[in-house]
């Protein structure tokens, strides 16, 4: 590459990028900062950057039963749904990727089309159904409903991941006398593991962030963390801003833990495309 002379266009471009990068993270950082403020430091016409930090908001949040129950419900519902997604989604994806049949295209389209369904259209009938079974507002109902999401997403993302495993490795294992199942367990799964973990992490983030279905399928016992957090804000204009900010931070942390995994997953998807 020859060195570029400094031109105004490049400077403007860099400025725009810097601004975009700033806008990407600043609102979240500001929220985190507000979580450490007393209410008087938040309700100021001129935003305060310097203040005496307090841990009161965070300890209040972590000490509330409703928040802890939400955290527990979210963890159980998402964990179980992702587990079901792994157990049912990965093998199915492998079968579609490695044993082509004339339905493969239709199966892939069916799995994708589940994403077209408007969440309200699923949530309203399910609410009536779970009410009739006496399972409304319970974790099992939520887990089963979320499984539809996790299975389809994991399957959709795992098909290309399995297709990316070099066929030669699997063929060699067959020659060595491995059976079809052994090849899946001992060759395909470990080789594709990195991409598969990305797919699984993605499905977790998706259900952790889910709101509408949880809102409609729970009234008190099975409320997940997003619902609890949204309720905290429904306290009129006299909101405890600091506490709200702290709950937003708590809610946002788990998905952000997967930032590294997911950006690596994104890279591997496009590296595959390139080769």
């Amino acid at each position: 590459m020859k060195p570029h002379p400094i031109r105004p266009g490049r400077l403007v471009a860099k400025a725009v990028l810097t601004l975009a990068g700033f806008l990407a993270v600043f609102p979240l950082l500001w929220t985190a900062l507000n979580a450490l403020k007393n209410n008087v430091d938040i309700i100021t016409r001129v935003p305060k950057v310097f203040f005496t930090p307090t841990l009161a908001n965070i300890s209040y949040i972590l000490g509330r039963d409703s928040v802890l129950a939400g955290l527990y419900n979210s963890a159980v519902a998402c964990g179980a749904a992702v587990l079901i997604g792994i157990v049912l989604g990965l093998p199915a994806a492998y079968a579609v990727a490695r044993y082509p049949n004339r339905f493969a295209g239709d199966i892939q389209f069916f799995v994708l089309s589940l994403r077209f369904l408007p969440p309200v259209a699923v949530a309203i009938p399910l609410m009536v159904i779970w009410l009739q079974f006496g399972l409304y507002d319970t974790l099992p109902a939520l887990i089963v409903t979320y499984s539809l999401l996790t299975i389809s997403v994991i399957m959709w993302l795992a098909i290309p991941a399995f297709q990316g495993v070099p066929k030669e490795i699997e063929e060699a294992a067959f020659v060595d006398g491995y059976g079809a199942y052994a090849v899946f367990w001992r060759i395909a799964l470990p080789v594709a593991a990195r991409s598969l973990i990305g797919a699984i992490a993605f499905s977790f983030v998706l259900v952790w962030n889910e709101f509408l279905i949880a809102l409609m399928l729970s009234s008190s016992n099975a409320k997940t963390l997003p619902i609890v957090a949204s309720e905290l804000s429904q306290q009129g204009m006299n909101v405890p801003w600091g506490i709200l900010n702290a709950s937003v931070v708590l809610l946002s942390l788990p998905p952000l833990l997967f930032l590294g995994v997911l950006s690596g997953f994104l890279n591997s998807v496009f590296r595959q495309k390139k080769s």
Partner: protein
Amino acid sequence: MRRRSSLPVTFLVPTLAILLVLSMVPTLYAIVIALQNRELSTTGYSWVWFSNFADLFLDRRFLNAVWVSVKWEIVTVVATMVVAIGLGVLMFEVAGPRLRNFYCLLFIIPVLLPRVSAAFVWKFAYHPLYGIATYPYRLITGGLIFDPLSKPGTALFAVASVDVWQWGLFFAVIVLKLLETLPPQPIEAARLDHARRWQIHAYVTLPMLKAPLISLMFVKMIESLRSFDLIYVMTRGGPGVATETLDMYAFSQGFIESGKVSYASAMAVLMMIATVITFTMLWKRVQA
């Protein structure tokens, strides 16, 4: 070669059966409910067939919700693609490999946030008195109030900006990765012909990426249907009905205001039919 094995059947059939049951039962049941007159407050019901649907077309609030949904879909999809392509091209042009990685990491953060969190973050930011996003306006005008979320003219755009904040930045990363997969020769050739930078992208690289960009837009169109969380937290469909999309209206009919589950379900069924037909047709065209 692979021998005949029971693997495809044992791996596929149970999963597909479960997916079919989990998706078809609610879908069909939604239609059944839509043909009845169930309400949350009472247990009895009878069949009213298509009268819910007939009522919908006379319901001006429903027609408003259709229009708001269409506006939402157009605004968010167009703005997301513009932001994504703009920032993607800029990163490709002026950022070195390390800076690109850094920006990519930053730009993925918003989309990972729960929609509820993103909505809260920006609801605070847009607060007319204490918000950080309205602060510059207060500063410049010497303390005038600007409340984007409670004005009918700006509320939809204020909520849409959060959606674009999440998806536009994320898609910019994908556009960059797509640009990086392109072979360098056509770009070099255009450069030798003294094409300007923007001309190279407008006439060479972006046309080469037409297919993946259309797929990307397709994904965004599907994701834009999930606007409920943002609108529920930020405006609840208000002010008035300015941001009341179809799912918001269905939710308030079915749960908040009147508990008319059947009426809400009729709305959801219409949405479902419209989206499934539209997206199936689009998908077949994208694949063709």
